[in-house]
Structures are given as C-alpha cells and as structure tokens.
C-alpha cells in the first residue's frame, strides 16, 4: 500500500501540496486525476523520493520512501518527461537500471524486443517522442517493480501502442499483483483501466474511492414527464440538471435503486438510469469546489 498523509510542499511561498492524503491499495490500479496545476506530478515526485515533503509522510507498506533504498527498489517510475543520458542507447540505459534494480529481468528485456519495434543500440535522443516513451516502458517494465508510478504514461504513443502498453501493464497487475498509480488527463482511458480514483485540486486530494463506489454513489437519470416538470421529492441530492426538449437529465448523488423508486412516484413517461462516466464524475465533483467545467481539457 502506498500512502501519503497530510503532505505539504511549498515552492517559494506557493503551496503546491496542501495536506494531501492519498492511499493506493496494494494491487490496485489507481488513477490520479485533477486539473492542471492540481499537484499530481508534485505528489508523484514525492512518492518516488525525488521531493522531500515540508511536512506529512509518504510510506510504502508503512516504510518511509524518502532516502530508503530498500523501498525504492520496489518502485519504478515513468515521469511525463523521462530523462535519459543524451549519448546513451536503450541498451545502456537498461544496463544502468539493471544495476539499480535487483529484480531487473534480462529475459524480459530480450522478450520485449518483439513488443517494442526499436533498435536498442540507437541513441535515445535520436528517437521520436513516442519512441522515447516506448523505451521508457521497455526499460521500466523489465525492472519488475511491485509498484509502478506513471505520470501521463501514454502521451505521445499511437493508439496501437497505447493499447499494447496498457495490456502489458494490466497483465503485470493480473499476474504479479503490481500496484499502479497513474496520473492522467485522459479520463476516458483511465476509466477503462483504473479500479480506484483520486481527484486532486489545488494541492488537496478531494476524494478517493473505488471506481465502482463512485459510480454507485452517483446516478445519471433521463426523465420525461407528461406535463410540466413536477416538484422533485425532497431529499434528492441533485448535483446537476439540464433539459433538452421534454427530456430532463439529472445527476443525483445517492443509491440508484432508492433514487429510481423516489422518482417513479412522479409517474414519468420516461425514466432511465445511465452509468456515469469518470469524466462526468470528475466534472460534477469538481463543480462543488468552484472548478469551472469549461476549463477541463478532455
């Protein structure tokens, strides 16, 4: 389990993390989402031991991460701007990682040559951005980490390679129980792979739950009434309402069956519960903290 407790980090007076707390259960694929500048990358750099918090703690299974070699050997990271030595090839970078991670698998490295169509003797700086990302995955996956931390991992990859990479990652999760913490703006993609979600804004983690809990706790209703819209039953926690023609769309927080039972008492001519996408959850949850919907780049 990866855990951050009340982490505070300030850069020249700017509070980038403001008592952020987050728990990534073991074996989970945890999606960390949030608007630009929410503090996702800063939190990730804390989890990888690059940054030292001003206060608060970051632990892996109860052990502090910062300056803890034994713990860091179990964590691998692919940051959004993966660094490589400018004169080096994939093979040379892999050799460095091999020396650093006792779990590095040369056999897997050789096998993955088939997955990634790259020349591992070519200098990385001569590769395209997407190819460099593939190189990062190739090397990192060979370290066989128990915990994998990814910051915007598939940026720059083509759709086929994206699918390939996700499939590799999920294969590791399934076979080896790898825990993945992934930060991304691509909510549609995260929705397909994550089982837990944390939403960050302004240096805080606003909420974190399993995706199924989130989806069970918020309902999207499409309702049409014979006449004018009646008064909705008191106690319904309506987060959002819009009307197109005679069809009303409600986003309501609560148990789906209870909500359907309450609304059906109004005798609508159409009543349908539609599953919420992660994108919608993100938008409506952040709406509560004055986050303007139109600012979100999806």
């Amino acid at each position: 389990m990866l855990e951050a407790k009340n982490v505070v980090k300030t850069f020249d007076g700017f509070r980038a993390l403001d008592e952020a707390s987050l728990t990534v259960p073991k074996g989970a694929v945890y999606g960390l989402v949030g608007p630009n500048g929410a503090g996702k990358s800063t939190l990730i750099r804390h989890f990888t031991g690059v940054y030292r918090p001003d206060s608060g703690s970051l632990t892996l299974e109860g052990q502090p991460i910062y300056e803890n070699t034994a713990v860091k050997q179990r964590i691998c990271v692919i940051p959004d701007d993966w660094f490589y030595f400018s004169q080096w090839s994939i093979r040379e970078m892999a050799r460095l990682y091999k020396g650093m991670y006792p779990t590095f698998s040369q056999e897997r490295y050789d096998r993955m040559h088939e997955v990634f169509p790259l020349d591992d003797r070519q200098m990385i700086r001569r590769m395209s951005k997407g190819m460099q990302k593939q190189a990062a995955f190739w090397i990192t996956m060979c370290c066989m980490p128990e915990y994998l931390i990814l910051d915007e991992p598939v940026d720059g990859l083509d759709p086929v390679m994206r699918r390939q990479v996700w499939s590799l990652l999920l294969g590791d999760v399934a076979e080896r129980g790898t825990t993945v913490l992934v930060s991304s703006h691509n909510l549609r993609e995260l929705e397909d792979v994550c089982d837990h979600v944390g939403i960050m804004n302004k240096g805080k983690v606003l909420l974190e739950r399993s995706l199924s809990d989130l989806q069970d706790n918020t309902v999207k209703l499409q309702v049409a009434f014979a006449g004018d819209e009646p008064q909705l039953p008191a106690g319904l926690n309506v987060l959002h309402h819009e009307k197109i023609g005679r069809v009303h769309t409600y986003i309501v927080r609560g148990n789906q069956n209870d909500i359907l039972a309450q609304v059906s008492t109004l005798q609508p001519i159409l009543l349908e519960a539609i599953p919420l996408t992660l994108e919608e959850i993100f938008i409506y949850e952040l709406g509560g903290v004055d986050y303007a919907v139109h600012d979100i780049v999806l």
Partner: protein
Amino acid sequence: MRFMISSSDRALARADFRRFWPLLFGYAAVWLCALPLALWSNRRWIYDATDSAASLSSVNNHLWNCTAAAPILSACFAVLLAMALYAYLMNGRSVGLLHALPITRGRQFAVHFTVGVLMFTVVHLAAALISLPVQAGCGAIDMWGTLEWFAVAELTGLFYFALATLCAMITGWLLAIPVIYVGVNFMFAAFYALFAFLAQAFIWGYESVGRPAWLDWLTPTVRLYQQTTTGESTLIPDTQFRYYAQHLSATGWTTLLVYTAVAAALIAAAYFFYRARHSETAGDAVVFRWLRPVVLYVISLAGGMGLGILLWYMVSGGGSMTVLVLCQIVTGLIVYFGVQMLLHKSFRVFTRRSWLGGAVLAVALAVIALVIRFDVLGFAGYVPDADRIESADVSGGYNIPYVRDISDPEGLEKLTALHRAVLAQGKPDDAALYQADSSTSADEGMLTFSVSYTMKDGGIVRRFYQQIVRRGTPLYQAYNDFYNDPAVRKASSDSRFYLAEIDPAAIIGGWFNNYRQDTDSVELTAPQARQLYMALDRYLEARRAEPVDVLAPEWSGANSGECYFYLEFNYQDNTSVSTQVPGSTAPTAANDADIASWGIDMLPADCTEVLDLLVSFGLAETADELLYD
C-alpha cells in the same frame, strides 16, 4: 554511510565513467605529453653517458617543472570534473531520474566524488609509472622527484576537486560552478586589493604590504603555486661536479598537508550540503535560501567597491571622496539588483524590500569608504613600538639609501623616532613639497622615506612618505640620528659606505678596469685582490665613523665618486643560494656554481691606500691616473 560497494554504486560509477571518459582522456593526454612524452623527446639533451648525476639533475629539473604546473592543471581539471559529475543536479529532469533511483543521496555523492578522485588518480598514476622507464632511458631515475610530483598533483587535485564539489553543491546552475569556484579562490585577495587601493589613495603614508601570509592561505591558488615553485636545492652527492636537485621545501609540504586537511572538511561540508539540498532547486542560482543574502551582499559589496573605483576614475579621474562614494553606491546598486534578478530569475525585483536592502548596501559602502577616508582604524598615525619589531627595511631614493634588516634595538629606536618625526610634522601640501624637492638650499630638502617593518608576530607594516626636511627641526635631528647610527650605516647599500661581506681568505682573484684608459680589464691575482679588499674595508670603516649631515650638499650626492675605475672581487661563495625557480638553468659545474663576484666603483678620491696599492701593482703610473679627469 556504509562503505560496502553495492551493485547500485557500481552501476552509477560505471555510468559516470561511460559518460565522462573524454574528460579523463583529455586530462591523461595533457599529463602524458607533459611528463613522459616531453621527457622522452628531450632525452638527447638529458642523457649524459659520462655522468649520471648530470642526467639526474636534468630529469629532476623536468619533474620539478611538472610539479610547479600541477596545481594549475589540477585547479582547471577539478572544476571541469565537478561540472561534469554534478551537472545532473542543475536540471529538473535529470535530478528527477537520479534521485528516483534506489540509491540514497549520500551514496550518490560518495560514488560521484570517488569516481572524480579515481579519474585524476588513474591519470597521475599512469603518468608517473610510464615516466619511470622513460627516465631510465634518459640515464637516471629520480624516484623521489616522481613521488613528489605525484603527491603534489594528487593532493592539489583532491583539494581543488573538493572545493569545486562544494561550489557545485550550493548552486543549481552549471555555469555558476566555475564562477563561484574562481570567486572563492580569489575573493579575499580581491577584497584586500580593493581595501589596499582605497587606503593607499586616502591614508597618508599607507602602503600595501603586498600579500600578507594570511591572505595567501585564503587564496589557495596563489599559496599552492608559490609553494610548488619555490623549492629547495639539494646537492646530488658523490659526483665529480656539483649538481643540484630541486625538491619541495618543508613549508611546501606543510602547505600541501594543510590544504589536504581543508579538503577533508570541504568534502564533509559538500556531503551535508548534498543531502540538504532539495531536488526542486535545480535551476536556482543559489540553492540554499540562507545563503542567498550572503551571496547577494558579498557580490554587491565587491562589485560596488571595484566598479565604483573604475567609474570614479572615468567620471572624475580620482580625487574627491564624495564622488567616489556616489560612484560606489551607484555601481553597488546596479550589481545588487542584477544579482537579485539572477537569484529570483525575474526582472521584477524592484520591491520595497529590495530597495531597503539596497539602502543597507549603500550605507555599508559609504561606511567602508568613510572608515578608510577618516582613518578610523588608525593606520596613518600608527608607528610600531621598537621592541615589537623583528627587523626593518628602509629605502627612499638617493637621499635615504636602501638599508636592509635593521634589527639592533638602537637602530630600530632611531628608525621609529624618525617615523614619528615625519608624522609629527604633518602631511605637507604638494606645492611646498615640490619647492623643497627643487630647492638648492643647504637648509631644506625633501625626504622620501619608505619603511617596511617585519613585526615579531609575523605581521608586516609598510609606510611611504614624502616630507620636507628643514635644518634645526626635530625631523632633521631624527633623520641625522638615524642615518649616522653605525649599524644602520653598515647595513646601508650606499656605495660610499657599503662593502660586501667577504672572507678575504675566500677571495680567489679579481678584475681591475681603468675607465680612463681604453683598454681591456686586467686580472688581479688572489693576493692582490685580497690586499685591495682589506684596504677598502679599512677605508670604508673609517668613513662610516664620520658623521654625516643629511642636508649637506656633499652628502646629497652632488660630488660623489671621484675615482674613475672599477674593481671586482671573485670569491668562493660558501653560502650558496638554496632556492631556485624552476625553469632556470641548472648549474652545470662546480667552478661556475660557487664563484661569486662583487664590484665597486665611484670611490671618493681620498681612498689613498687603495690608490697606492693599485699603483704598486703597476696598474697605474700615479694615483692621479685613477681619478676622474
């Protein structure tokens, strides 16, 4: 910190070597060219089949030259090495990779530093080992000289690399490393030079003492270079001729060991700084918040003082103190806000708080200038007590000849009395001084007086004055008392009283040249030269006893030197100079090495005993032939 080598350490060290081998090869090429290759290419001049001592002396000379070059090369290579090895700390992406790897910061520091030390050690070792067979090919192996070169190169390398590493630890800019490195090396010398310049300009009589010892210690490059270029000559034993070898002096070794100890402290400081620095400070000019005001004010003060003097000369050509203070404040503020911009990475630094800091700087610059101008530290009126003086040197042109090493208490008392008398009379104005200097009166003259006291505590006090001397004044009295002191007279280099101290028995010959006759010099036999020397000694001794009036026309040089010949004495010098600057020609044979000579001319016409001897030796018909016509 555990010292067991892990696979992570090895991986990181390998990465360093793989990335920076060109630097290693470059440094190796320099030393291999300078040491074994240069030795080999000069072997035809070095190799002497008949005398191995000659070869040994030449090999030693080559090694000594390399020893002298070692601190400079080490200083250059160390900063390049530190820039290469710690460059990753200056970039957010690279520091992100290195600090995310499962190896602690402490280990990373240890690995990078060890790699750096290994890099120059390998080069030094290779150059030393390869040079040994080359030396053998040149006819002699100087094992001690080789070890000495290795020690100097290695220890200075360690010191400079530790210093450069510390510089790298406090900045997040790659190019700031060499700037800080040079700054730290010469900061104290620069401040001292600025202070001395202002003091010399505004304090009457103040004269810079050059480089005091404490300043040399705080300016490592100067100290190390000085100590490795000033060695001791030792005679190579059991040889037909006298050959010398240069070696590091005891002071040189002490200097090396002291800086090695300092290097250990610097390494420890750098280690703690590395652990304390935050990864996110990559790109900051100074990574520690607490250090920023120190850097800001030190640079602003130095820049303000230095550039202010420059502007002062450009604006007013020197002179007015007010203009100087204004110039220093203007340049100080320019530097101050410039540094602020670098520290904050922004042009928006003109905040109220910054202006307050600027005001503090302006006040500090003004206070420094005023402290010097009004001599708050009391330099102008200071005359050391005679009993605290170890020795003194005095000079001042024709009217106060160079007197070295005055150390007898009476002489020192008279000197300090003269010094006090000069001060008591007050600073003369330039017009009066000019008038006194050009005066032909026997009652007035100008005294140019430069004194350097070496204090018993090792300190040096130097002063320089130009003062008007008038007959009957306390200064006139003090001047006469000082100059007529027998010990002072004997120590004086005034040719009318000075005789080189030579043991007559050591005189092996000499030369005589009568300027009135257009003939070659005539060689003197040893007995002739000895007789002449002893006659000279008696004559000058008698002259020294005669009192001198410092304002007398005869004394002031108008009538000096009526004889018109030159006498030279050659003698066996048993007090051979023990130090030699490397690069100078090594002595080749004993006959030349130990023979010294000293000559005299411009003798007064009343040196009758000397003149009579010259006539008796047949070098002139009459004494008149030896006088100026």
